[in-house]
């Protein structure tokens, strides 16, 4: 009996030993162990969190999103688009207002930073000493000062230098008004017939697109160039404008309303010192015109100017990466310097520029979270700040906010990757 058992055991252990020395099986075992450890670790964290939250008698879940919030927000793009009145707006509305405000400052900031960055980057390679010196000074100054300080600088510069609320200071005739309380501009009022103008514009755009395709074919076949840009622009302006007047000008600009302290309100009361100044349109208080708050302007300025200094360096590096032989070859073919820059240098430089440019766009978006320092109601300020303090569900709310930044960043990266693929050198 004993001997048989022993022999069986040795056979078994022989099988196990061979398995132990099999690198594939061993690898698999360790992978499974590692996976189990990782899963157990996260399960433990999750369980711990749930238990601790239950012990602290804190509620969890996303039920709070349907409750109404009891606080007021600064007038911004978000408060125009989503319900924002205190006591009516829910925490979900507050969340969307934050998202819209973050997106607004990011998108407009990215456009401005890209334009300015390209100009400064090209200036840095200019043969003109003044332009080159300016561009160098710009880049070295702005990229070496912390962004938060720059945001404070622009904000306090604006609110210190701009005229007081009750002063009537206007720009460009009577179109814009500006003071410490914002930039007040006209708002379009549409009447019946404006839809036709919109359709005329869409029709023209399709026409221009078809024409550009046909002219490209013609150039490839015959070599005769066509001034597509100017012709296209002329068509896009002329046809919708003609339709606009043909329909009897179905749109008017509505200008911001200025009230002096001694003016009378519709109800007969005096305007008084508090309300004197440009009337501010806001939720629950309709007033003519639109307003852009100094908090937005300062944040947008700081983000754009700061990021432009990095983009300028990327553009310079991209242009320098195109070998000099390309310029010489274009010259030898008799191509003019402007066309060389547009058709030879920039397309090749773009391949080098786009990947690091994407990182700068993502940086700008994430840097917009510094908004809370100067009271711009972005998602960090209103949702992870004020709303979090009232609801107290840190985990859910921070998670939602992280998802917003993740989705914005992934979206930007996906778009830029698509753009990069289009710009890749097509080898024939």
């Amino acid at each position, binding site marked *: 009996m004993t001997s048989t058992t022993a022999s069986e055991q040795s056979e078994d252990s022989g099988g196990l030993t061979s398995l132990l020395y099999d690198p594939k099986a061993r690898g698999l075992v360790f992978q499974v162990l590692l996976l189990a450890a990782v899963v157990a670790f996260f399960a433990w964290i999750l369980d711990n969190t749930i238990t601790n939250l239950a012990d602290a*008698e804190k509620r969890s879940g996303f039920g709070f999103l349907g409750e109404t919030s*009891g*606080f*007021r*927000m*600064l*007038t911004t793009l978000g408060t125009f688009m989503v319900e924002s009145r*205190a*006591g009516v707006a829910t925490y979900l509305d507050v969340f969307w207002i934050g998202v819209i405000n973050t997106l607004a400052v990011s998108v407009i900031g990215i456009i401005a930073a890209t334009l300015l960055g390209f100009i400064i980057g090209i200036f840095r390679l200019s043969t003109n000493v003044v332009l080159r010196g300016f561009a160098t000074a710009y880049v070295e100054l702005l990229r070496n000062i912390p962004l938060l300080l720059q945001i*404070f600088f622009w904000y*306090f510069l604006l*609110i*210190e230098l701009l005229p*007081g*609320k009750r002063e009537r200071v206007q720009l460009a005739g009577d179109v814009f008004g500006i003071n*410490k*309380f914002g930039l007040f501009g006209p708002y379009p009022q549409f009447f019946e017939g404006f839809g036709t103008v919109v359709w005329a514009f869409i029709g023209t755009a399709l026409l221009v697109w078809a024409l550009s395709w046909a002219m490209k074919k013609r150039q490839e076949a015959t070599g005769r160039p066509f001034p597509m840009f100017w012709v296209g622009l002329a068509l896009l302006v002329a046809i919708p404008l003609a339709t606009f007047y043909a329909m009897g000008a179905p749109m008017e600009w509505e200008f911001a309303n200025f009230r002096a302290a001694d003016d009378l309100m519709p109800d007969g009361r005096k305007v*008084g*010192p*508090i*309300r004197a100044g440009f009337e*501010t349109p*806001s939720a*629950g*208080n309709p007033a003519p015109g639109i307003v852009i708050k*100094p*908090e937005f302007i300062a944040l947008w300025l700081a983000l754009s100017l700061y990021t432009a200094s990095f983009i300028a360096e990327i553009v310079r590096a991209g242009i320098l990466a195109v070998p000099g032989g390309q310029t010489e070859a274009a010259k030898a073919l008799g191509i003019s310097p402007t066309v060389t820059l547009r058709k030879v240098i920039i397309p090749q430089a773009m391949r080098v520029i786009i990947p690091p440019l994407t990182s700068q766009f993502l940086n700008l978006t994430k840097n917009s979270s510094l908004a*809370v*320092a*100067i*009271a711009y*109601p972005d998602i960090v*300020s209103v949702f992870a*700040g*004020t709303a*979090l*303090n*009232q609801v107290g569900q840190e985990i859910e709310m921070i998670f939602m906010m992280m998802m917003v930044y993740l989705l914005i960043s992934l979206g930007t990266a996906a778009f830029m990757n698509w753009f990069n693929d289009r710009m890749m050198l097509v080898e024939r």
Partner: protein
Amino acid sequence: MKLRYALGALTAIGMAAGASAASADTLEDIKAKGSIQCGVSQGLPGFSSQDDAGNWTGIDVDFCRGVAAAVFGDADAVKFTPLSAKERFTALSSGEVDILSRNTTWTMTRDTQLGLNFAGVNYYDGQGMMVPSELGVTSATELDGASICTNTGTTTELNITDYFRANNMSFELVAFEKADEVVAAYDSGRCQVYTTDRSGLAAQRLKLADPEAHTVLPEVISKEPLGPVVRQGDDTWFNIVKWTLNAMINAEELGVTSANAAEMADSDNPNIKRLLGTEGTFGEQLGLPNDWAMQVISQVGNYGESYEANVGANTPLKLAREGSVNALWTNGGLIYAPPIR
């Protein structure tokens, strides 16, 4: 043998658990270590702030010194721990501090859910509003359409929204992360109104370019009773802290000051005799020497002395006591203490 080891280990674990759970007998612990650990704010002029030499002053600081005088007969037997608003309750419940005397508002949530006991109120505060005097505004009801600067993440945002909604007025709220930016934005004219607790307005006002050119409006739009806090579950210590505050208030009512306390001990008024320990055994009932209140008053002063020295009309804060809710009840205010008898 094994059983004995096991018992020993159990005892050790029990002791460790007992020590970590912020021991129930705070008075014994304090006597053993020889000083009181007092949690104060990180710097709010008039309430608790450090001077250039590192000495703490303020109405909240005076109160902790008073408790030290009651327990040890020495007002300096106290150490201060500056705490942020966020960490204050954790510091108290973990036993890091013995008293929290940090302009803390007494609310129901804090009383019932956070395991705290409020020992009374040493300052009745409330949210107020400040405007530049040149606007000519005399009441908050004239603020329709105003632009208001405040801090984010506090109850002030809710209180001000409630007030404007209740009065059917429109307004714009500019909420900054830090108080310094609020002051700078208000001073530059970005806002017409600055709102926070009235004692905070008095303190922050000193940072403005011209403090005299601004007016605090009469309306108080929230109740913020500030007072010392102790942990729940230790009634002996709770009583000592509570009655130190009551002794300071009773002393003012009876006219006992730091200057005349020694003479007053021979007074014919039985109320004063009981307070100063020349009649009855009130100190012993608290577990303290019978002259506990005598020590508090002679070393720190009565409530009124502390108020005038730290936040009163002759201090930079200029929070006049006359006619305010912080006047003694005999002068029409809310400062009132139960009798010692």
